[in-house]
């Protein structure tokens, strides 16, 4: 069993980063959040288009995304800003969700402070104090079993299913062997290989939930006039050599390994179980929403497998880009972290590629910055909508 050096939180979680989060409760608080974050060393703003005029089920999902992001172990302190008292989405509502983690927490209401300038001042003072307090926190040893390792794929190509995704599945198995957990979302990509997933389900209820999740996503797409099954694989996919939906989907879901699937989660929901193994989550293929849902579920680190060279990076969950396409790696050298294309030329075996991915994950858990982190290209916070704006 190996260890990593992380930030131990009051509730027993262990983070791999130590951020001050400036969390916007509603779209209309985004400006204050950004101004505060601009001022404070190491602060990360979380801004978005939600929090107002949402139907109740949709608002609940938004709240899980926002509170979950703040509860992520990589966050040491949180300043929440809202503009008015939104029913079901006040700064106090979010604070009530986050408080059990025991982390530093403050709320600021723009109207209550008398407008933008006073709200910025009050929130900045909180954030300054928090940034200094958490700067005293030190990394301490923790077992790898504390890691919830998220995985995603996007801008996939022929190399994805053959190299980066299976290597990533093997990396997950190395973590799981040490007691860790791996999380995969994007149930749109389970279509065509549901059986491969349900065979791994630890309990019948998990298998049933996997099938229901795929059917639910398909029904939502159908209701919008889109038949996902009829359009998959896409014309581009077929021109690229993918023949059937199961070929495409298998290539995608191979980013988890063969360990049992312990639990099925609703979008942005944290696991309730702690057994080592794979965990799966309902959600769209849309990359930013998908990885944000996994950060909200508590993933400290994420691998993003990409044949074409994706730029996605989550603001608080280091996002390690892995490619099996050497051309993409060369072209996107400042953005893509790991190149496993050597499997195609027999320079490395797939097992060695898995070890290379795992070693990068472990380094990042110990504080090594990803390429996009070093650039602060925090482009991928997005909230999945399940209802219309009213």
């Amino acid at each position: 069993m190996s260890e990593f050096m992380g930030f131990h939180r009051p509730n027993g979680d262990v983070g791999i980063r130590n951020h001050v989060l400036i969390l916007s409760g509603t779209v209309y608080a985004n400006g204050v959040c950004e101004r505060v974050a601009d001022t404070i060393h190491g602060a990360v703003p979380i801004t978005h288009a939600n929090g107002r005029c949402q139907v109740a089920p949709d608002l609940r999902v938004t709240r899980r995304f926002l509170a979950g992001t703040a509860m992520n172990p990589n966050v040491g302190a949180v300043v929440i800003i809202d503009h008015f008292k939104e029913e079901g989405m006040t700064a106090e509502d979010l604070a009530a969700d986050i408080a059990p983690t025991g982390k530093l927490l403050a709320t600021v209401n723009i109207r209550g402070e008398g407008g933008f300038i006073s709200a910025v001042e009050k929130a900045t003072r909180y954030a300054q104090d928090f940034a200094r307090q958490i700067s005293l926190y030190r990394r301490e040893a923790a077992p790898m079993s504390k890691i919830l390792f998220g995985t995603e794929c996007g801008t996939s190509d022929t190399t994805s299913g053959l190299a980066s995704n299976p290597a990533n599945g093997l990396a997950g198995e190395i973590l799981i062997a040490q007691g860790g957990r791996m999380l995969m979302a994007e149930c749109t990509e389970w279509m065509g290989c549901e059986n491969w997933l349900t065979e791994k389900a630890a309990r019948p209820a998990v298998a049933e939930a996997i099938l229901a999740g795929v059917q639910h996503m398909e029904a939502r797409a159908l209701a919008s006039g889109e038949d996902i099954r009829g359009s998959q694989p896409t014309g581009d996919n077929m021109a690229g050599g993918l023949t059937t939906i199961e070929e495409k989907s298998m290539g995608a879901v191979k980013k988890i390994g063969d360990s049992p699937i312990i639990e099925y989660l609703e979008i942005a929901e944290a696991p309730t179980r702690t057994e080592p193994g794979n965990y799966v989550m309902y959600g769209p293929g849309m990359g930013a929403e998908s990885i944000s849902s996994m950060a909200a579920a508590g993933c400290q680190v994420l691998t993003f497998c990409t044949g074409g060279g994706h730029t996605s990076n989550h603001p608080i969950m280091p996002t390690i880009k892995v490619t099996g396409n050497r051309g993409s790696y060369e072209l996107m050298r400042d953005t893509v972290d790991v190149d496993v294309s050597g499997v195609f030329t027999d320079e490395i075996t797939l097992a060695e590629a898995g070890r290379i991915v795992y070693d990068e994950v472990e380094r990042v858990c110990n504080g090594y910055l990803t390429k996009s982190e070093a650039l602060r290209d925090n482009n991928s916070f997005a909230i999945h909508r399940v209802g219309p704006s009213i």
Partner: protein
Amino acid sequence: MKKVFVVYATDNVGTAVLEPIQTGDHVGCNGERSDLEVIAQADIAYGHKIALMDIAAGDTVLKYGLSIGSASSDIKAGDHVHTHNVESNRGRGDLAERNAIATE
């Protein structure tokens, strides 16, 4: 000799990810199945698949060690393997009932 990539030892197709293949090329395998060699019976574009052995109509086409569909006609070693000779077993309305039973 040109090479295709084989991801799993039980696969009966390889993928042209290193270089495109022309009809008549001698083709070997990187990854798994380095023992196998075929002569290409068709041009195989980048990302497309070549049969590593004969696959009879109705037999399973294996990639990642898993079924990606069934041969819709007899496929010979070295043939291009794609939508013209493979059909999906999933996501098909005509098979929905059978699949529902299979997943119960």
